[in-house]
């Protein structure tokens, strides 16, 4: 594999992990605009453990992920009392606060950034992303995923059916935060450098874009969205600014024409039926 | 020529047909009532006449103009107004602001001021609360406000959707007196009501809707004695005294 291709695929792997971190709560109707903050927690916490306490990164990475998840849980309980735009803004504010805290935290280098000693290679990153996708595929086969959609679709009725709406929402939010932290921890150990400025609003916002572009109705949406957003710009041989500008136009036009996203349940069902009929005909 | 001429309109929400080939007319100075059980399509009919839901087929003429495709504000501007079901008072506005909202399309501010005073003279309860938020009104007062608001648009035809809903018998009495009074002053009325007896007692003409179709139409006195009408509401009309 050429160095260029590997580099692109590594970026893709990180984008996929971030996309699923956004997707989990969004499947339950909660927009998390602060995903970068949770990635920062995973990155800094795991880097701190390997740097300062000489932990093995295979222990430090899960702990970083768990810390991000725990933060999500503790913050999720009060913040998830709010709905809709309030929740989006609360997560947005949270993301800003977290990255500002790291920017001012001198033990991890403050604004100068924080070099990380241990290194995880591209295949480790690929394995992590595949692991996240597999976990999501597994979850999408369970009642938990069913309840996420139920809660998003009609929280009042889900509540009357006996489902703990808050419980499901908090779990999705915290699990999403843990996935973000997991990705962040790998990020720190792959690039061997963390700086708070990387985990900014635009990272959060672009991740939400991938997910909505791919579509939130199915578990495949975030994967397709992240792949498209990572690979398509590589094909556009233009300056960065033109690339972004064309991209923005594309997003606007696409969302206006297909607000439900690229991959939808009916699309999947349609293709499945098509393949079924075709194989019958072939037989 | 009738003031309002609804000819063969159909309306559907997605796949559900709410109205099928409904026709009716309201002449100048007339009260027409539309009766029918819950879900018969009465509210949809009024909304279609106002233009708030699109027609699938058929046509609507008001004051000799084709209104089939006109937006609600165009129709209201011509004097075709609706007092909606549930009154729909704006609770973040004061009583007076609610009334002025009815006149929002008019530019004749002197006349608006005079009519506002006339409405206060008619409804003294509203006058006393003119600067209070409309949320503090009782159900009956809210209904008066909704009618007053509609009057501020200088209507030629007023459509009322279940005006007696949730009102005490005393207020229902007052309400129907008011409808009759407005009609005597020259206003044409299209009235949708659950209170069949009251509605038939004031109307010049009645139409009965069932599942989106007109099943009966004619003179209110004849309809009132029709056992089929009772059956439409209370079921098994045979064993009930007429």
């Amino acid at each position, binding site marked *: 594999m050429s160095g260029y291709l590997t580099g692109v695929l590594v970026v893709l792997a990180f984008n996929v992990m971030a996309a699923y971190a956004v997707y989990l709560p969004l499947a339950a109707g909660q927009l998390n605009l602060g995903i970068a903050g949770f990635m920062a927690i995973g990155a800094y916490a795991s880097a701190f453990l390997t740097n300062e306490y000489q932990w093995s990164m295979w222990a430090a990475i899960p702990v970083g992920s768990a810390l991000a998840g725990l933060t999500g849980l503790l913050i999720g309980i009060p913040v998830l009392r709010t709905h809709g735009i309030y929740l989006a803004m609360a997560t947005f504010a*949270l993301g800003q606060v977290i990255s500002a805290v790291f920017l*001012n935290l001198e033990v991890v280098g*403050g604004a100068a950034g924080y070099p990380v000693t241990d290194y995880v290679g591209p295949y480790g990153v690929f394995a992590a992303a595949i692991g996240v996708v597999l976990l999501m595929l597994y979850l999408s086969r369970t009642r938990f995923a069913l309840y996420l959609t139920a809660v998003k679709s009609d929280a009042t009725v889900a509540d009357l059916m006996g489902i703990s709406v808050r419980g499901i929402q908090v779990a999705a939010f915290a699990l999403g935060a843990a996935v973000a932290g997991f990705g962040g921890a790998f990020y720190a150990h792959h690039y061997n450098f963390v700086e708070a400025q990387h985990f900014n609003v635009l990272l959060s916002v672009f991740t939400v874009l991938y997910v909505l572009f791919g579509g939130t109705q199915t578990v495949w949406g975030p994967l397709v969205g992240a792949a498209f957003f990572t690979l398509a710009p590589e094909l556009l041989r233009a300056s960065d600014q033109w690339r*972004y500008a064309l991209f923005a136009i594309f997003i606007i036009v696409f969302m206006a024409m297909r*607000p439900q996203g690229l991959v939808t349940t009916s699309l999947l069902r349609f293709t499945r039926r098509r393949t079924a009929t075709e194989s019958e005909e072939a037989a | 020529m009738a003031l309002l001429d609804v000819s063969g309109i159909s309306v559907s929400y997605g796949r559900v047909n709410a109205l099928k080939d409904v026709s009716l007319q309201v002449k100048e100075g007339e009260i027409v009532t539309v009766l029918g059980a819950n879900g018969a399509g009465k509210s949809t009919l009024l909304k279609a006449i106002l233009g708030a839901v699109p027609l699938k087929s058929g046509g609507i003429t008001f004051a000799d103009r084709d209104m089939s495709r006109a937006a609600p504000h165009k129709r209201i501007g011509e004097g075709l107004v609706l007092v909606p079901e549930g009154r729909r008072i704006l609770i973040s506005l004061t009583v007076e602001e609610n009334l*002025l909202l009815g006149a*929002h399309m008019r530019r004749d501010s002197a006349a608006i001021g005079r009519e506002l005073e006339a409405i206060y003279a008619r409804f003294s309860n509203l006058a006393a609360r003119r600067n209070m938020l409309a949320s503090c009104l009782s159900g009956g007062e809210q209904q008066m406000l909704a009618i007053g608001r509609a009057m501020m648009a200088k209507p030629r035809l007023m459509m009322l959707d279940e005006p007696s809903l949730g009102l005490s018998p005393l207020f229902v009495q007052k309400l129907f007196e008011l409808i009759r009074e407005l009609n005597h002053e020259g206003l044409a009325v299209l009235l949708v009501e659950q209170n069949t007896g009251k509605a038939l007692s004031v109307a010049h003409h009645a139409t009965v809707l069932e599942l989106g179709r007109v099943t009966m139409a004619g003179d209110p006195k004849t309809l009132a004695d029709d056992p089929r009408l009772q059956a439409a509401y209370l079921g098994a009309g045979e064993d009930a005294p007429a």
Partner: protein
Amino acid sequence: MLAQQIVNGLMLGAIYMLMAVAFTLAIGVLNFLNFSLPGLFMLGGMVAYGFIKLGWPTVFAFSAALAAAALVSLLVERFAYRPMQGGDPEVPLVSSLGFLVLLENLMLIYFGSDQQAFPALVPDLNFRFGGLVIGIAQLGSLVLSVLLVLWLSWFLNSTATGRCIRTVAENRDTAVLMGVDTGRLVPMLFIASALLAAVAGLLFAVNYQQVSPFMGEGVGFKGVAAMIVGGMGSIWGAVLGGLLIGLAEVLSISFIGADVVNITVYGLLLLILIVRPQGLIGRPATREKL
């Protein structure tokens, strides 16, 4: 010194206040968190800068900036808002972010990413009250933004169109039944909020004498924070929130340090959302009916 910082904080707060009012118009009436507004703020500053550099008279350059913002806002209405009615609420939000990214990058292509020096248009005159130094541009901006908000509040409360807008805010379906022409009113609201954002951008450029393609982000997001702190959907909430956020920012810079601004400002927002989600002035939502 504290009094001086309070004056500076109020000045910055006035700009946040305009942004917060712009957001409030969009969200309070149309239920749309319009993230293109920071882009329109930037457009106000950058377009004016571009035309002034071309040698246009200031008045024309400012008018061109306002017109550009209004025009783009109509595009936002057409492509981000109108097609999304009845869908998931996050979709128009994302499309409006698309507009922000687009505007920023178009400006970047034309002007480059550097801070540009905005010419000093107002004579460098200062008033002195005791130890307080108040620039004439500062004072003028503060007065202008307060007048704008007062006028808007009067307009909403005392005109027929204002009553229609408040009706749409309370219940859009009822507004249609009352004959409110939403097809005309909605684009008008988009223009109004765009003009507020662009005026804020102009005031920012005149006061701080610098513009850049990214000047909208920080200010715009703080405008949203201000709106929520004050209470979504209320103009006076936006005013209160804007001034509070402006003060919090200036005071924390001068007493703690520039790096902590995001912690205090967004920490305040987070705290408000946890303790009192409806904001300082605002009503809590009620549970839906079945």
